[in-house]
């Protein structure tokens, strides 16, 4: 059931991207709605505001989760396309491991800033 589990995870991450990215978009761009709820959205797209948000645990966790699900969804989808276009068992293995390494590298790089801001 390996391929099935990976594919189900691909579908679940698609839904999670919509949710997490939705939260991010609402926080940054839908000021009028947030104002109605009484949230202070002053200058929410400025650098200082962004750094301040990333220093909060809940926002750092949201962005790290968004990075993880987006990376999995994107790389698994791209892997599927490439596997279809280069149908070979050996090539498939190389492609899979390349994408795992790219994913881990990109995740490590992407989480460095929020983790650094949290610890400082």
């Amino acid at each position: 059931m390996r391929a099935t589990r990976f594919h189900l995870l691909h579908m679940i991450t698609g839904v999670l991207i919509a949710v997490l990215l939705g939260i991010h978009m609402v926080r940054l761009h839908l000021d009028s709605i947030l104002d109605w709820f009484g949230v202070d959205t002053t200058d929410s797209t400025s650098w200082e505001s962004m750094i301040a948000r990333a220093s909060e645990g809940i926002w750092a966790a949201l962005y790290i989760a968004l990075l993880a699900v987006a990376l999995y969804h994107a790389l698994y989808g791209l892997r599927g396309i490439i596997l279809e276009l280069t149908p070979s068992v050996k090539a498939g293995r190389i492609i899979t491991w390349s994408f795992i390494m790219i994913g881990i590298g990109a995740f490590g790089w992407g989480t460095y800033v929020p983790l650094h801001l949290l610890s400082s």
Partner: protein
Amino acid sequence: MTESSTKQIAFKVQRYDPEQGDAPHWQQFAVPSSRGMTVLEGLIYIKENLDSTLAFRTSCRMGICGSCGMLINNYPHLACHTQIEEFHSNTLTVRPLPNLSIIKDLVVDLTPMFNNHKSIKPYILRQDAQEMENPTAEFAQIPQELNDFLQFAYCIKCGICVAACPTSASDRLFLGPQALAQCYRYCADGRDEGQQERFSLVDTDHGIWRCHLAGACSEACPKGVDPALAIQLLKRRLASQALGLRKKQQPSSVVSPPAETKPKIPFPEFTVKGSE
């Protein structure tokens, strides 16, 4: 064929003979066509009257054997099941099925499709091997259970779904709609116990999850089988099992065959009596 009811149709046929070393090329034939004439009859006319070297497969001429699948006016059809007048055109292009290698002219090599079909074990698998080898009775199946997979059992293995499938066009390791639909057909059969065995065969990198539900297979199938539906139902079974939502099915029990009964309506008497 009377003069008034016939009209000339230009058959543009793709010719290719790997043994000659030529590239595939077009050859045009003028075929007299009458109402109700099929593309296969046109090809038979060409072979009998114009060019006996034209190669194509045919057998039953009634959409049962699945031999005469070909690309007619850029769409996969059974030649025996397709009337010339359906196209409302004086020109027909006839090519071999795509996604399969050409043996000669309109004859394609269906071996990869049959190998994929064989790989999913298209037969009833049971745990009680002794009963399978030496049956003592019948496996029970009610009509509702039969309806769950009956339409998928109408597959004639013509290869038209494989020719129409966009994934089969790019991924030569893909199992293809024919094999996947037949996998569901046997998994959905209440007499079968081989679901787990088959799941491991289709749950691969080039297996069931490579199907993107284009639906071209179902649209092209000349027998009205819906391979795309079968694949979706098989995906649901796999997903349910992976999530632990699927209950284990009890295989159908072995029952004695029905006892011989008298016909309800008596057999009519012969109206013509033999001389005594």
